[in-house]
């Protein structure tokens, strides 16, 4: 299906395809402009148009009523392009006709017809009588050579006046401003306007915007600069908006990729060393929720809470680049609705999950160690335990608490304990292991606490502490915590292994000062302590 126009060619009425019309119109315009300076131009045109009508007429029959593009192309081939005609007929339009219509002074204007930005390239092209595309290309290429052309363009945009009137447009093209030229120019423009009016109905909104943006020109120079500045700002604002849109789009796309990765069960944290399990969102949710349904609910909630804003970002970015054409009806409302649903589900899951942490209980194990012969106590880390959970003994201490958590050995997760050294007045060294955990019920919390496994050993005056405690994987994460208090008699010299310092959070009694040597942390007496330690 094609749109057909009804046209009058040489006094006859023809039905002609839209594209065929454009082609023919272009051809006749070319002939007009080519022979514009030849005496009897109108007559030549009239004759040629009649010939076109005659030839086209011969192509029609009862079965064929519409002129097609092929018909027009054939006719044009038969009649010849203006250059061919001129070459044979030697009208001298290129050379001898010039003196009869001398050129006027050429002036630099911005050409608003067919402009992409401010018409600077078009104006320069008219001034130097070269193709506009070449000028644009030059501007573009020079952008890469330091970007000076951008500044040049902006400056010219602002200071070079725009060719508003027909006379100015003739001056721009270097044609003499006389009545016949103006008439001709106006006629040509009217043709363009006719064409525009047709497009107008198809693209009304755009046309209105263009008119309101640019066509309110003042005659005064200052007014012209004002309009030009306005144009500059409009376009610059558009470019900035597009850049922001692009940034939004890229960010959203990358985040979406990550998001989908997590949704598909991809690991959040990847650490192939030490055989650490991949941490997925699902496994995180399972740490908190005992009920698999709640765990799934939290997943849905996350999808909505994170996915909806990401889609909104994508949408906003597209809008900024493409403009309001890409607008989707009710997008905002639907997005907000889904996000609120996600929030509701999330709050519900959170409330349900929080119940698992309602109560805290502790289990305390006190061990009195046999008295030691010297007054120096060494506290050391049992690095051998790393090997037990499949981590090389050397370097294994680099594991932080988060990574340690994901090492599951014999159905147990692992966590670091807290160490505190406290002075006492008793003679014995005592170790108090305080295990804490939470649960939905007091007895569950107590059960979780007593499920925690922690061990240490003593060889003479050396205490070997395990670098981590373990709790059953099935318990989930219930804020299991272990605090080790080492109660030491007054005046005992405590030497902490440097490994210990890296492994534990060492809490110390206020009355003792830790002094740091290269590899060891020594504790030493402070002068003032007596009152406090009592």
């Amino acid at each position, binding site marked *: 299906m094609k749109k057909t126009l009804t046209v009058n060619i040489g006094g006859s009425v023809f039905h002609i395809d839209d594209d065929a019309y454009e082609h023919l119109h272009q051809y006749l315009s070319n002939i007009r402009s080519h*022979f514009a300076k030849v005496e009897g131009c109108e007559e*030549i045109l009239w004759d040629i148009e009649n010939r076109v009508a005659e030839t086209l007429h011969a192509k029609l029959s009862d079965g064929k009523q519409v002129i097609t593009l092929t018909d027009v192309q054939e006719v044009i081939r038969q*009649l010849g*392009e203006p250059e061919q005609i001129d070459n044979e*007929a030697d009208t001298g339009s290129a050379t001898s006709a010039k003196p009869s219509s001398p050129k006027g002074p050429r002036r630099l204007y911005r050409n608003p017809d067919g402009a992409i930005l401010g018409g600077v390239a078009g104006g320069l092209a008219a001034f130097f009588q070269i193709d506009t595309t070449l000028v644009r290309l030059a501007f573009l290429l020079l952008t890469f050579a330091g970007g000076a052309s951008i500044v040049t363009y902006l400056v010219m945009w602002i200071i070079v006046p725009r060719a508003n009137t027909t006379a100015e447009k003739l001056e721009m093209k270097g044609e003499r401003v006389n009545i016949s030229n103006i008439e001709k120019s106006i006629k040509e423009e009217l043709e363009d306007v006719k064409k525009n009016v047709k497009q107008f109905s198809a693209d009304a909104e755009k046309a209105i915007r263009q008119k309101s943006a640019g066509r309110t020109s003042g005659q005064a120079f200052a007014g012209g600069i004002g309009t030009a500045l306005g144009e500059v700002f409009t376009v610059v604002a558009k470019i900035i908006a597009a850049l922001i849109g692009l940034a939004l789009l890229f960010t959203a796309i990358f985040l979406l990729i990550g998001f989908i990765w997590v949704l598909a069960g991809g690991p959040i944290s990847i650490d192939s060393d030490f055989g650490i399990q991949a941490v997925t969102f699902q496994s995180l949710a399972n740490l908190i929720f005992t009920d698999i349904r709640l765990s799934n609910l939290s997943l849905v909630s996350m999808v909505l809470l994170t996915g909806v804003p990401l889609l909104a970002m994508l949408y906003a970015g597209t809008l900024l680049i493409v403009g309001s054409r890409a607008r989707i009806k009710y997008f905002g409302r639907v997005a907000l609705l889904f996000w609120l649903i996600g929030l509701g589900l999330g709050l519900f899951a959170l409330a349900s999950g929080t119940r698992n942490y309602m109560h805290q209980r502790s289990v305390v194990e006190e061990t009195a160690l046999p008295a030691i012969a010297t007054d120096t106590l060494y506290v050391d880390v049992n690095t051998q335990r790393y090997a037990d959970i499949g981590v090389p003994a050397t370097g294994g201490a680099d594991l932080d608490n988060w990574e340690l958590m994901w090492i599951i050995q014999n159905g147990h997760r692992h966590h670091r304990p807290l160490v505190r050294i406290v002075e006492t007045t008793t003679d014995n060294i005592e170790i108090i292991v305080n295990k804490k955990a939470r649960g939905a019920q007091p007895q569950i919390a107590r059960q979780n606490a007593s499920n925690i496994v922690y061990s240490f050993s003593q060889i003479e005056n050396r205490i070997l502490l395990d670098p981590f405690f373990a709790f059953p994987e099935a318990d989930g994460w219930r804020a299991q915590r272990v605090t080790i208090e080492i109660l030491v008699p007054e005046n005992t010299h405590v030497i902490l292994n440097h490994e210990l310092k890296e492994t534990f959070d060492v809490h110390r009694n206020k009355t003792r000062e830790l002094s740091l040597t290269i590899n060891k942390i020594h504790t030493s007496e402070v002068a003032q302590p007596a009152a406090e330690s009592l």
Partner: protein
Amino acid sequence: MNLENTKAQMRKGVLEFCILSLLSAREAYANDLIQTMKESRLLVVEGTIYPLLTRLKNDGLLTYRWVESTGGPPRKYYSATPEGISILEELRQTWNELVLAVSNATTTNPNKEAQVDNPQNL
């Protein structure tokens, strides 16, 4: 050497002569002329005839009258004016001299070529 261009240059000068010649014999409208001249391969593209007719008319060598046609716009029937006919006589004489000169130049022994005027100067 651009052969096509040379051929076009050769045709150029004689087109007006041919048109005048045809129209001095009988009245005709553009299509008749196109038909005749295309048959004798004087025209490559039809459009050429129109600027030529207009120029000859403006120079007063041709005149035309409107003739109503069936199923189309009125047609211009061109004919040569008395001035056109006298110009035609002049052109014809020049043409004959030219033909003679060219045929001499192209058939004589290359040794004698200096005897003949260069046709391009005519």
